């Protein structure tokens, strides 16, 4: 699932304006960005520079005011609500700052949730959930509910959930934001391993260690990309 010559994501002149009484807010101002399959990209910049807005646009949970975003060969800006939902289910994996696991489901059930939604047979999804729990080092925690897990463990379950339907792209918004330094370092290792195993990663972060672990850093300011170091030619 790639776009063009090894590209998984191609954004062209993407803008996102918010209608506010008085002057509209231009959160993202004409961003053009290509990400190749297997890349590990960190989007960094000061608070309010439009990083999370850009991530939401790339993940098809928000629509650009102008421009196009092609992910895995599909222009996500043109998708209907139902198509965008389906695309998020199968094409994109999300990891959030606050984990957002379903508190009434066990770790394994949380991982199974997107697979169940994608109509994967029960036996298959249970096997996949076990495999993913093993991958994130939580094979003994399958039956635990989120409140029985530490912050780092919850984030690892969230990563496993994001990988459940084998997405083309994994998007993470401040994934170490709620973790202490030691657990944050474990998470950085986890992301490095994910990328080494072939997952294309886009991470929005304030965490310098996490940003430096990425092979490519995209610096944003005032809704624009001001520096794109480590870009694949």
């Amino acid at each position, binding site marked *: 699932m790639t776009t063009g010559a090894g590209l998984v994501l191609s954004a062209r002149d993407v803008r996102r304006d918010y209608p506010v009484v008085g002057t509209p807010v231009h959160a993202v101002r004409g961003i053009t960005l290509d990400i190749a399959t297997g890349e590990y990209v960190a989007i960094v910049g000061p608070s309010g520079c439009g990083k999370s807005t850009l991530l939401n646009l790339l993940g098809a949970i928000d629509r650009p005011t102008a421009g196009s975003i092609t992910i895995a060969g599909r222009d996500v800006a043109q998708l209907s609500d*139902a198509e965008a*939902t389906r695309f*998020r289910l199968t094409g994109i994996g999300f990891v959030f700052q*606050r984990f*957002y696991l379903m508190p*009434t*489901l066990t770790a394994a059930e949380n991982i199974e949730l997107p697979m169940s*939604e994608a109509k994967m047979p029960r036996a298959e999804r249970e096997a996949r959930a076990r495999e993913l729990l093993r991958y994130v080092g939580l094979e003994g925690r399958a039956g635990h509910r989120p409140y029985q897990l530490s912050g780092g463990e919850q984030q690892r379950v969230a990563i496993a*959930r*994001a990988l459940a339907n084998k997405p083309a792209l994994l998007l993470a918004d401040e994934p170490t934001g709620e973790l202490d330094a030691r657990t944050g370092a474990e998470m950085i290792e986890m992301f490095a391993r994910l990328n080494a195993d072939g997952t294309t990663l886009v991470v929005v972060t304030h965490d310098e260690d996490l940003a430096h672990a990425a092979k490519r850093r995209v610096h944003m300011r005032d809704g624009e990309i001001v520096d794109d170091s480590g870009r694949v030619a």
Partner: protein
Amino acid sequence: MMLRLALANLTRRAARTALTTAGVAVASSMLLNMVMLGSGMRESFRGFLEQQPYQLRLAPRGTMPFDSEATIGGAGELIARITADPDVVSVAPVLGGKLFVERGDSVVAGFALGIDPTKQADYIIAEGRDLVAPDETVWNGAMLEATGLGVGDSVRGAAGYDPQLRRFTGARTLVIVGRGRFVMLSGGERATAVQLRTLQAMGGPDRADRISVALVAVREGAKAEAVAARIEASEPRMSAISTEAALKFVDERLGYFRQLAFILASVSLAVGFLLVTTLVTVSVNERIGEFAVLRAIGVARWRIVAQVMAEGVALSVVGSILGLGLGLITAQWLNGILAAFPGLPTAFEFFRFEPSAAFRSLGMLVICGILAGIWPAWRAASLPIAKTLREEAVA
């Protein structure tokens, strides 16, 4: 998975869910009681009339049976004429009156029925036997208790009391041969039965050859209304009341009951609806972050709607089932209280369980539960994902 998530969310706040379910159960039981009250007396009355072998009741023109003290003279000939109708199978004459019994310094009075024991449908023998001889009587439990007498005892009874002469009239010695349950009388009302000829004789010239009511059994296949019309045409002193006419009369008298029941049932439905809407809305408000995440990871909008609505339906169904039990218990309790109401026959029930009506009312409550979940469900499914996640993160 989403259904499991819905049910798990209900048990997540177990106390709140239990309280709401209890509220829905109370609303449901009240709804059931009102539906039972709305049709209970009518259906109870219908059941009572239809289990009797008589389809017509003849009373003096313009009265209902035992609604007044009016009687009809020339009863023997009247019954003979009515019996001659080819569609009439039998006629059971009844005379109403009083029976006075002296017990020490006091007098115990009871309602007296003069009947033909071979045709009567007014009481069921619970102890002893029915009337055979003219000087025999059957009493109900209240009369026996008031007098301290029992089956087998002899007693001096009178049919009237002359206040000027200060003495009883039409007195004679009667033998109590049976204890009966008088179906048309209230539980606490004292009642006795003697043979029609005996009560007519005890009443003196005023009661000779007179009856209060005649019950008419119509041949199978014949139309009771047609027979009633013939009797009324040939006997201008009489009103012939069919079962349907009697039910219509009862319907008119119970109109206010039904209106009250309808209003209270509507209030119950509204309370159930508001309870479910409130709980589901509060629950959705607490979980908007979760819903936004579910949408973000690709859960379809309609699945969110289904999950939230399933919570409303689960509350309504469980509440309704509990309400069914609670409603039946309270109906039985209220029936017990109202059965002691003076002047009401023991056979009557205010709250009568009719499975179809009960399930219809509970079905309405479940539909209310479905409707109650629509708005919060749509709200949960329509959240702007990015904005909600941003607000949740800030919060």
